[in-house]
């Protein structure tokens, strides 16, 4: 899988409360989640994001609440993948489980600015900044997680196991 998209960059400790505020958690409807994605950190995000765009975050992206609504909101908003210096652990496993591609790549994050265009090769774990032409190598997933990703998420993985 290779994604190309415009970058929305945020700082460290982007928590799930700002990704999707609790006041919208009385519904898990995709349109509701997409409409309010990133609302408390970037009011314009939902209007400006285009299919395939990429979120870049600093350390501890997705910290706080376990709400799966956070990676779902990002996915439903059309974001193709999230690249961060590190992810909070529940957000990390939720993303793998629901099939939202994520990559840990501190060097790429540090060399990226909002508005840059990135090309991300998920299988190779490579992030290329099209403005600078530089390519960065992300932290690879352990084989077990690669299997879940390949199956298209945890539910499909479990289905295969149970049948």
């Amino acid at each position, binding site marked *: 899988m290779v994604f190309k998209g415009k970058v929305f960059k945020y700082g460290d400790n982007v928590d799930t409360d700002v990704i999707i505020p609790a006041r919208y958690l009385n519904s898990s409807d995709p349109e509701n989640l997409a409409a309010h994605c990133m609302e408390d950190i970037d009011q314009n995000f939902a209007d400006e994001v285009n299919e395939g765009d990429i979120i870049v975050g600093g350390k*501890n992206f997705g910290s706080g609440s376990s709400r799966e609504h956070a990676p779902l909101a990002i996915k439903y908003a059309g974001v193709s993948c999230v690249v961060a210096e590190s992810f909070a*652990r529940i957000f990390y*496993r939720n993303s793998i*489980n629901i099939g939202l591609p994520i990559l840990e790549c501190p060097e790429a994050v540090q060399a990226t600015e909002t508005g840059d265009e990135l090309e991300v090769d998920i299988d190779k774990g490579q992030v290329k900044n099209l403005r600078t032409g530089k390519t960065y190598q992300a932290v690879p997933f352990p084989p077990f*997680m690669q299997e879940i990703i390949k199956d298209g998420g945890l*539910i499909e993985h479990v289905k295969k196991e149970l049948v």
Partner: protein
Amino acid sequence: MGMTMIEKILAAHSDQDELKPGDIVNARVDMVLGNDITTPVAVEEFNKIGVDRVFDKERIAIVPDHFAPNKDIKAAEQVNMIRKFARKHEITNFFEVGQMGIEHVILPEKGLTLPGEIIIGADSHTCTYGALGALGTGVGSTDMAAAMATGKAWFKVPPTIKFVYKGELKPHVSGKDLILYTIGKIGVDGALYKAMEFTGEAIENLSMDGRMTMSNMAIEAGGKAGLIAADEKTEEYLKGRAQRDYTVRNADPDAEYEQVIEIDVSQIEPQVAFPSLPENTKGLAEIKEKIEIQQSVIGSCTNGRIEDLRVAAEILKGQKVNGNVRCLVFPGSQAVYKQAMNEGLFDIFIDAGVAVSTPTCGPCLGGHMGILAEGEKAISTTNRNFVGRMGSTGSEVYLASPAVAAASAIKGYIAGPEEVK
């Protein structure tokens, strides 16, 4: 070679003799938990799997507590959906309004989280159960769905940081202050992808309620779990409660830790975490400015247990809440509510001008029952002070213990119990 608590618990649940950090296991879980926000998504995912029954109807707990009693029509629809699911699958531990409480207060209280066990919950504060010597850890709705079908979950074995708390606590210093101090020291990602073990004489001397407050906030340092060895106090607490047999799985003496951090608790003062991260902690004496507050919240899965309410009542007794402050008390469960009532704590609260609520997570996450307006500040015994957490993105939350929240409610600004006489 010896194992840490989390290594031992994961090994026992995946039939391994030994595990080390980095290993990945598919482990049996003893309890699967969800609330009214996370369970609806889990039910949808569960239905996609195509199994017609849950793995064990007695090992699933569903607790409508976040937006319950239902705050609006959409919240009511969500609870209705999970209620139907619970009835269809005859889920034993569905806690309806009236029997309910805040999930992490009621599960230990009802003896559903036991030493040596694995409890996964679609709620980040599932790490509370570490206080009982269990691996409690937060997951998402899809994990909850898969575990409801299979009774299993995948885990990467994390390295463990051991915290050794030495010395004796000063008066009015509690488990809340210890954990806030710890988060301030290591940061909100200080234990990311790692387990924390809380040890030392100060932990041995803490009550079970104080221990649960500490383990509850392990996630605020990024931790996968905040484990405390089961001891006589744990056994005493579980007498008459434990709903299953259990095996204590404390760390081996020769367990290997990634890091050992020693903390002298005799130097720790009551702590306040400033907006908008739990790591922004200061001791009371370091706070030079007068921070006026408009709301004081006492309760939540962090500090909604009987000991917390007793501490608040002791300070509020014979006092009045400041005219500029709304002080709200949320007992964590019906049992805590009843006990507080029988002990006369409600008389103290109501005479002081405090509003006492039925158990709910409500205000902690800006759900309902105590939302902040733009420009308002709250002192709160809850666990998160993120931007917009309790309401407007222009409001602010300061985290502290029940003692500091009660004293601040009386003074109208952030203050310690010593200032109230």
